[in-house]
């Protein structure tokens, strides 16, 4: 029974986060995996009672996510999830505020809100379900679709270049930037935990397969015979090694990353680029974000960058505290009768 004074956090289970709503994504959609990993990890991720958790979304397939979580939820309007979430978080910084969003929602119509939430370092967690297509409107190209993509609105191939969400968030000074893949539950769980643990704006991009309109968009990263040679798992303080036999590595030639063979004796792990998540400058993280611009290089997943600065909501709360200390608690009578007054009798 409800007891509004409860403060301890109970031992939650995955099913405690599952709402009574039927999940309505297409069978086989990558969104199912994201929902499962979130529910599985949340007992560990949230360090608060579940009534303090809010999931907020915009519009698109991914944005149905809040309906399936048994937490507070707000299914907003297209593109506005980050700002809706910012409003919630600023109003009540004790809440754990999460955004579920898609590539069209976050990077097309909502691009402005996203970069400003990053800039301000609002303490919200933004989980991008990137399927590189518009699913809910049935298959138009998105701002992350590759150039030349043939869709219903681009029968001769798209002529625009895609956004690189990692690079965009790094460029907007997000304090936590990571990537995972729907088909790698273990890695995704790890990344959700890291995202939840970060204080500040945390951005997690998840490559998500839309098996209806863009099936196989990430197959080189998910299929058995190609994934190891195309995926680079970033680990802090570890040299960047990849490949089926862990025989390849990334070496920095100045600021230019190159692939080297570490199996033939010419190069060893000691020659490789060692990943530093906490690098003061975003430069290396941005090089990593663009690593696979060169198709001979693998696609990194993991944490690109994490650093800390005052959160926006924390800043507002601190400023209120400071002004209260300096000026004293607000006194309405004083404010109303302040300034140049005169008396009429």
């Amino acid at each position: 029974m409800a007891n509004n004074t409860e403060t301890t956090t109970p031992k939650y289970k995955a099913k405690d986060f599952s709402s009574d709503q039927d999940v309505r994504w297409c069978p086989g959609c990558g969104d199912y995996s994201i929902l499962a990993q979130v529910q599985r990890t949340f007992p560990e991720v949230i360090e608060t009672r579940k009534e303090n958790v809010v999931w907020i979304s915009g519009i698109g397939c991914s944005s149905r996510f809040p309906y399936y979580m048994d937490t507070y939820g707000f299914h907003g309007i297209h593109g506005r999830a980050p700002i809706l979430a910012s409003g919630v978080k600023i109003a009540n910084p004790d809440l754990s505020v999460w955004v579920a969003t898609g590539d069209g929602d976050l990077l097309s119509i909502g691009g402005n809100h996203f970069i400003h939430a990053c800039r301000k370092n609002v303490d919200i967690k933004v989980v991008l379900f990137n399927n590189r297509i518009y699913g809910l409107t049935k298959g138009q190209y998105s701002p992350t679709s590759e150039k030349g993509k043939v869709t219903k609105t681009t029968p001769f191939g798209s002529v625009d270049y895609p956004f690189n969400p990692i690079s965009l968030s790094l460029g907007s000074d997000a304090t936590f930037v990571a990537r995972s893949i729907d088909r790698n539950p273990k890695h995704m769980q790890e990344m959700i935990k890291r995202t939840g643990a970060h204080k500040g704006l945390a951005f997690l991009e998840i490559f998500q397969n839309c098996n209806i309109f863009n099936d196989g968009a990430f197959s080189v990263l998910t299929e058995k015979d190609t994934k190891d040679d195309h995926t680079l798992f970033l680990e802090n303080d570890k040299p960047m090694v990849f490949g089926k036999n862990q025989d390849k590595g990334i070496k920095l030639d100045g600021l230019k990353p190159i692939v080297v063979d570490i199996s033939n004796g010419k190069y060893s792990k000691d020659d490789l680029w060692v990943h530093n998540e906490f690098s003061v400058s975003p430069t290396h993280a941005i090089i990593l974000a663009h690593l696979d611009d060169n198709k001979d290089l693998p696609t990194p997943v993991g944490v690109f960058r994490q650093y800390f600065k005052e959160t926006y909501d924390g800043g507002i709360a601190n400023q209120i505290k400071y002004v209260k200390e300096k000026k004293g608690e607000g006194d309405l009578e004083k404010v109303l009768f302040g300034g140049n007054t005169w008396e009429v009798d």
Partner: protein
Amino acid sequence: MTHVKEKDFQQLSDVTVRFAGDSGDGMQLTGTQFSDTTAWIGNDLNTLPDYPAEIRAPAGTLYGVSGFQLHFSSTDIHTPGDTADVLVAMNPAALKKNLPDIKNDGTIIVNSDAFDVKNLKLANYDNNPLDDDSLSGYHVFEVPITSLTANALEGLPLSPKEVSRCKNFFALGLMYWLYDRPLQNTEEWIKSKFKKKPEYVEANSKALQAGHKFGEMTEIFTTRYKVEPAKLPKGIYKNISGNEATALGFLAASVKSGLPLFLGSYPITPASEILQFISNYKNFGAKTFQAEDEIAGITSAIGASFAGHLAITTTSGPGLALKTEAIGLAVMTELPIVVINVQRGGPSTGLPTKTEQADLLQAVYGRNGEAPVCVLAARTPRDCFNMAIEASRIALKYMTPVILLTDGYLANGSEPWRIPHVDEITEIKVDFRKDPEGFYPYSRDENLARPWAIPGTPNLEHRIGGLEKSNIYGNVSYDPDNHDKMVKLRTQKVKNIRNDIPDLKIDGEQSGELLVLGWGGTYGTIKEAVAKANNAGLNVSQAHLHYINPLPKNTEAVLNNYKKVLIPEINLGQLARLIRGEFLIRVEQLNIVRGLPLKVNDILEKITELLGGGNGK
């Protein structure tokens, strides 16, 4: 030493003064200082700042002219005055631009130093108007304000440019002398404003005093004027602008509801000041969020409302257009927010610094779907205070967005305000839902409001959103009958507000020949026009709407008590259209859309015309 003749005093009941100069001449400041001093000595007053959208348009040009008109009196007044009795023109452009608004036989004080070849040319004067007889219908006083200011400040360590920038205080000092106002208020203001620049304190004070002294010493002014204090109701007063009153109203609503205030906003003329004022109230726990755009302004407020704050957003016309979709979201999620639209001239960017009433239909209807919201309008600068509290009360009680309409004239104009004590302001009761027993997110109370269950409340976890929700349970629902029901429930909820608001009040005869019906910032003008008509023996009454959606219950009955109804508006007939549509009655219109308040005389003429010169007989 010349002998100074004792000057005569002449008693006046009211005066309208207009200060005009370059946007860089400090005319808004001069006008505000004159207003504050005038209010402080107890006159009633009403002001109309009128300035260009350009911050510092090229000096001397016609489009760079900035004006400030104020009307002050020993009796109750309600408008800034149709035309001015006195014009202070700091240059030829200011003279040219403002002359049409000066009474025949009015007084013109010009800075004669500024009437040089260059400035005359910039103002498109072929001849110097001071030299020909084009101003023969006026009392013109040529005062070399620039050089007199320079003389007064001789020896101070200031550049010629800095010296020249003090000339508005000279003009102000002269006007203080002419209308017998004390210098003290402005002297104190100068001291606190230039605290960190003692040389400016000295220079501006000296200029002010020099202007005053010039009046005393010069031969050209033979008469001074006195306007006795007005008999206002007992109390403590201050001079207040609409924007300041709006900000204070929301602060009061926050205190009285016990909810922290959240303002999400994007700067826009003429609404930005509200954001600036509220940003100072951090020690009340007020959170101000200067958002990345208008949409973010309102959407952050919706988030804060979801989390249990008194959430508001401020904007002007183009911003309201951008907020449209989010207002719909607040309608659908039934969350309380207040949207303040300080109307300006439109469409598009329109006339950013001018006033208009053309957003009424946008406020009432401007959304996709059936999206009813409550729409209120403030009628005077000080009324913005009460309406801000009322908008908050309705939003919180009915779980609905409320649009509060003010306008550029109300926002920037000011008038004396009898300050209410905190305990005179009614409490706003707010009950967050706490009890999980029988909780459903879209169940309703007797007012049809749904429960406000904020995140952080145990066992009330629920989901809301922009998709249609099933009645009571709040699950996503595409059921046709449910949609029909929800559309009607949302509409009925806003209609129910009728039962909770005062009746439409009539000033004057309760029935008769003609009712002048208005809304918003035209209140004072209509009031004076109706008073004048009554004095002329015409049978006219006035009613003014605070509540436009829903309309007060007795509106139809009131309108039916008159043979004719006239609706004057600064738009092409938006209230008229609403009234016709709602009640199928005939209404007459007066529509003048100049970006300025209506004139008393225009309304008076229309009244006279409608009554056929007599009482409709």
